[in-house]
């Protein structure tokens, strides 16, 4: 969808048009669910995050400035919701990891070999590094776009990506030598 079409769609959402909101949902929910799932490794949590994100989007769409691109604004809400839920889950993390991580790392669809190691390595990253890696590789966002989404300096994002990659290499190296 081109920017002009998106701008018109958002204008309609601002006016309370539910059909336009559903269209916006259809456009953005797929990758939003993927992002939330990649971050949390739980379908239930991913669904909760995306629901909460779209509810927030609808309720605060009036504060969105139409002159600016919608995508970074949307993903900022999504990532904030994700971090909020991860923080909430932190206390019960051990239980959560036991049940869900094994499903993520060894899923029924059987993603084997290097992918399995990659999943394990990604799981070793803290949420700051994991967020930039997911935004970069799942979406193909540029460093500038990620900086805008996370409201951070572009150099900070560069550094997080570098450290994230280094950490992945380290973990993958260690796995290979096991």
């Amino acid at each position: 969808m081109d920017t002009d079409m998106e701008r018109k769609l958002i204008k309609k959402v601002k006016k309370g048009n539910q059909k336009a909101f559903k269209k916006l949902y259809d456009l953005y929910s797929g990758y939003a669910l993927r992002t939330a799932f990649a971050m949390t490794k739980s379908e239930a949590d991913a669904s909760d995050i995306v629901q909460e994100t779209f509810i927030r989007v609808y309720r605060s769409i009036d504060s969105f400035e139409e002159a600016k691109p919608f995508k970074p604004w949307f993903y900022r809400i999504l990532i904030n919701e994700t971090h909020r839920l991860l923080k909430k889950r932190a206390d019960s993390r051990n239980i959560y990891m036991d049940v869900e991580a094994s499903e993520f790392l060894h899923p029924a669809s059987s993603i084997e070999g290097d992918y399995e190691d990659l999943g394990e390595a990604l799981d070793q990253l803290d949420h700051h590094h994991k967020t930039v890696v997911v935004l970069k590789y799942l979406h193909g966002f540029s460093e500038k776009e990620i900086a805008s989404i996370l409201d951070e300096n572009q150099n900070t994002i560069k550094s997080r990506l570098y450290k994230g990659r280094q950490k992945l290499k380290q973990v993958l190296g260690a796995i290979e030598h096991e």
Partner: protein
Amino acid sequence: MNKEKGTMEEFLKKQTDSAEELKDAAWVNIEKELFTKPKKRPLWMKAATIAAAILLIAMSFSTNRGQAVIQSVWDLFEEEKTVEFELEGQREVNDAKLNANPDLDYVIYVDESRYRLEEGGQSDKVVPAVELGPEYPEVSMEIEPITGSSSDQELETIRQSLEDRDYRIIKNTEIVKPFEGSIVIASEAEEGEQQWNSVMEKYYVTEDDNNALFVIKQKYFLEAEEGHGVRFDTMLESFEVVNE
């Protein structure tokens, strides 16, 4: 580096494929939370709703199209919306109600604490809920769908009418807010000769992608510009053409 990038992309996409299947179920919950939440209403409002429902049923016997349009319009829009007004630097928050005239194919949220919508055959008028005294000039916002004409023709007609009545055109330009279109503002008084009750007329001309053309005419007086004028414009932000 590219191999690493490719592998990570593939991994993340494959790993998250199943998440896309959650779309429909998640939407059901969103819809439930946003659009079907029961609202607590005072008793008189419940009675009014029942009366309105009876009226709608009665209408359906006379006009099937009217019934169909009303139903779909009410399905598409929230019944009530919070509208923020900024009047002379003061913020004011009011609930505005959805008003839809099925014959004229548009919707607007009206702040019913101050205004009411008078439905007409060719056009509707938003007027103050409490009538102003006889010493005040008319205050109204008329919404009229136009067929068989174009934006340019309508603008020309408006300008001609203003000139014929010796109105002074203050502004005549294209706009993007409250919607894409054109605006003409005029005053009956010459510059420097305006009184508190000098009549002002403001016209909006807008045409949507499906060539549905509307002319919205606001009438008020100089002293009411920051009051009724601003309130009309704020309500107009919710104006939308409904193409059935």
